[in-house]
């Protein structure tokens, strides 16, 4: 059963075709990596799936429902989380407050005017537990913008997971990280996405082959190949378009 599926997805920016008949299939419970050279349309595909853009043609199915063109907040409520390539946290709020926003959302606490949020003990408890799990408890009360880059990225990734989504879309989670930070981030992602479905855009081939159950290669807006890591590694078309360049 595919939890997430796109059917004949097209998208263009002012007639510039960016996605070309994309049929992505993501199975429930797998870690699915999307790779491809710069400008392949990976982030656009994410944006179309998560509701930033409406596709010019085609459809997106999430949990069997047609969700084409649904707004981001709708997708989140249906059980999709997303992190961004460029860190996108609430810079002036503390790490704790950042994560708490996700917890509040999951509990459906939105237009609540009658209780102090600091007094909601189970929200605080749950948020603290998440902070401990992602090793940010020492930085609990620091504004997000003062965190080190690696920690800030951890926060970025964890916010996508704080709403406890069924499918989490991670857009280059290790972007800009050092080797050590990358290794740590991979462990974090592995731990946090346990039992969930994850779709990950990634450039680092080590990350991709160590983390992903299945890989989809996007090239010039089209899917070049899709399958388990071993098959992708041996695929001639992929080698020509992409892997050959980086491994050489």
């Amino acid at each position, binding site marked *: 059963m595919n939890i997430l599926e796109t059917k004949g997805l097209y998208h263009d920016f002012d007639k510039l075709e960016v996605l070309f008949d994309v049929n992505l299939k993501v199975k429930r419970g797998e870690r699915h990596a999307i790779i491809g050279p710069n400008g392949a349309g990976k982030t656009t595909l994410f944006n179309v799936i998560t509701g930033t853009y409406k596709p010019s043609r085609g459809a997106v199915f999430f949990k069997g429902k047609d969700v084409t063109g649904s707004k*981001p907040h709708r997708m989140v409520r249906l059980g999709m989380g997303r992190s961004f390539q460029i860190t996108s946290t609430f*810079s*002036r*709020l503390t790490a704790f407050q950042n994560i708490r926003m996700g917890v509040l959302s999951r509990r459906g606490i939105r237009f609540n*005017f009658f209780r102090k949020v600091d007094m909601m003990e189970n929200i605080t408890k749950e948020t603290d537990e998440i902070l401990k799990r992602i090793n940010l408890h020492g930085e609990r009360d620091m504004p997000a913008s003062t965190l080190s880059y690696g920690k800030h990225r951890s926060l970025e990734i964890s*916010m996508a997971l704080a709403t406890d989504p069924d499918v989490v879309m991670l857009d280059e989670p290790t972007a800009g990280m050092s080797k050590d930070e990358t290794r740590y981030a991979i462990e974090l992602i592995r731990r946090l996405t346990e039992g969930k479905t994850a779709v990950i855009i990634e450039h680092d081939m080590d990350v991709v082959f160590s983390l992903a159950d299945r890989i989809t290669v996007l090239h010039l807006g089209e899917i070049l190949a899709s399958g388990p890591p071993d098959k992708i590694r041996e695929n001639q078309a992929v080698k020509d378009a992409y892997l050959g360049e980086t491994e050489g």
Partner: protein
Amino acid sequence: MMNRTVKRIIWWGVMLLALILYPWLFGIYYTNVFVTFAIFALYAVSYNLLLGFTGLFSFGHAMFFGAGAYATALALAHIEGCPLLVALLFGFLGAAVLALLLTPIVARLAHSAFAMLHLAFSMLMYTLALKLRGITGGEDGIGGFPIPPFHIPGVVSVDMTDPLNFYYFAIAVLGGSLWIAWFLTKTPFGQIIVSVRDNDKRVDYLGFRVPQTKAVIYVLACGFAGIAGSVYAMFQNLISAAALSIAHSFSPIVMTMVGGVASFFGPIWGAAIFAVIEELTTRYTERVQLVEGLILIIVVLFFPGGFMHMFWLVKAKWLGFTKGKGFGVIKEKLFAKRSEKKATEDDS
């Protein structure tokens, strides 16, 4: 825990006692100065709910103050025996309904578009107040309407034309409104609006509706401005188009800037500072705004965080609060990277 509660009760008790004794200690003239200050404090705080908390910069907040003031004045002038609290309610509703009518447009805007559209709307309201003489009295405004007593049938009836009684009424209404506004910023909703300020796209991606959130805080903030306007109209027993002018839209901006945009209490301090300055300078010169402008320039150049920032600086220096709360956090609040805004506008 017990200690904190006791401290809080004592603090509130002292505050309350000071407010009750104030007219007896300072006389009726300074009592009226204080009422004016309190009106502007609520007005500035209502503005800062938009600017400091939600990141919405408006050049036309006076139209909501004016809407509240005119609604109250019209109700008192035309409705026979309109009770005091009903007139106040009219003030709140006048501003809130005007805000509600504007939300379909403004809730989708931000930054300069939001600011300039408010400038346009407030100019429109100003012109309407001048031209619709039959309703608003034009430049003369509406004045001399009856101020009803505070009346609870069979319990109490207090004459509101007495300045002392009006002081207690105004302080109760304005203080109560300030407390509600403060509480609002502490609720989960208060947390969502500051998140919208920091990064509205991420708020969307966490499952909250941004335009609706903006609409709710907008209507509430404008309603508070309406209450300030309503009390102002009753206090002056006169309301004219000047309350809708550009200058009047700028005063909460300036007060917020001078007091400190990053804090709930900043605008209250700003209103207090300006009340004192006005009081002192009018003794020597009529050019009050010259002095106020100078102070604004000094603050913007040297203390961009305003009075509250200075307060925390001093506290940090002398009392050693350098970590965690206060200045450290505020400094972050003020100088946080602006680039975050662009962060999510990514493309492949």
